[in-house]
């Protein structure tokens, strides 16, 4: 990845891993959450938030060393950062660059806000939502989530 004066040291190049660029400003931590990175994980991560960007105003950037995101992880990001772009880095070079695409089905990503939903019990299932133009639809109880999807992330 080329070095960018505006990004400065915060996103210095990495040898191998993933750089997620053009994340909606302020959503970087939710992006980490959605791909399952918490304080307990061992990855080496850099986060830059509210970086000025001509394209989207303010953007966040996340860099994960030695981990290449899988397609379903990439697609989850689309839920909260539809303009994000993913750069898979191998040997300091962009090996693959891709946009994010909203998946049709989300399994185990979002918690159903309906307390009476069977997916909120100790049953051996993962939550399952279909993605509709107006929001997310729980395939167990038919509940819809139309706003603030990030706050329902598991």
């Amino acid at each position: 990845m080329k070095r960018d004066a505006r990004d400065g040291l915060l996103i210095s190049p990495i040898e191998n891993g993933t750089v997620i660029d053009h994340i909606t400003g302020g959503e970087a931590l939710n992006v980490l959450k959605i791909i399952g990175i918490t304080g307990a994980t061992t990855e080496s991560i850099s986060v830059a938030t509210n970086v000025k960007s001509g394209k989207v105003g303010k953007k966040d950037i996340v860099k994960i060393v030695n981990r290449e995101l899988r397609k379903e992880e990439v697609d989850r990001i689309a839920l909260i950062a539809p303009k994000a772009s993913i750069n898979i880095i191998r040997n300091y070079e962009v090996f693959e660059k891709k946009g994010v695409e909203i998946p049709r089905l989300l399994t185990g990503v979002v918690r159903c806000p309906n307390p009476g939903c069977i997916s909120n019990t100790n049953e051996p299932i993962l939550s399952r939502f279909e993605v509709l133009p107006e929001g997310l639809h729980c395939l167990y109880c038919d509940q819809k989530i139309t706003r603030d999807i990030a706050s329902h992330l598991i």
Partner: protein
Amino acid sequence: MNHIISIRDLDRPSIDKLLDQAAKLDAGPHPGKALSGKILALLFFEPSTRTRMSFEAAMARLGGCSIGLDSVEASSMSKGETLADTIRVVSGYADAIVLRHPKEGAARLASEFSAVPVINAGDGAGQHPSQTLLDLYTIRQSMPLSGISVGLLGDLRYGRTAHSLAYALSLYGATLHIISPKGLELPGSIVDELRRGGTDVREHADVSRAIPDLDVLYVTRIQRERFPDSSSYFQVASSYRVTPELLARGKERLVVLHPLPRLDEIDPRVDRLPQARYFDQSRNGIPVRMAMLLKVMP
């Protein structure tokens, strides 16, 4: 596998097919032995005596047997066990399972773990497809389903029977007149969905305004516990009460339905009028459930 979980899983041709089958069974004579040797498991995790009896009667009419537990037995059997495990076990005993459960989506889950077909007999505030099918069946006894005007009256917010029926009627191009007390309106998301699908949904504050347009008046229970005190309940209940005087202003072919049990929503004087179809409606549960059983155990 042939589960019946939600009315939304059925399209218009498959609903028509079920209703046609029910009509054939209703006209008799019953085939008697169609499900002979088959076993139906009734798993009721919350009490619903009528639904349960109705499935048992339907199974018996088709020559099959039922095994089952009432809600107390079911909850002690499953003590600490997941529904998924209970379903895996019971699906080894029977050819089909009828499930009633307090959690929404329970029947969908059961269908994922069952080795035999599952029929949803109500899951929490969720789906109850046999009720919707018998509502449609009862309307169809009086008039063709397509393009009719249906008034939904009462608690449309929490009343799941009204939600499923509204959806099913939308498949038939019905015009929906929704009439409910303040605070008990049909949820906006459902209204939006119906309208997006092209259904004409009209809201009324007052049933007497809507009545001249209706072919069907579907009355649902207004529960006392939705109101802060009994006087506000009685005030609302009396202004939404269906009376012979109200019906006199309706069309000649108007029919009145109610999923029963009723409280004060319908004046008992209506019972004797030709418009009253709610007792037929509950009897229709038998042929409709017979048709459902035959569909899942062909």
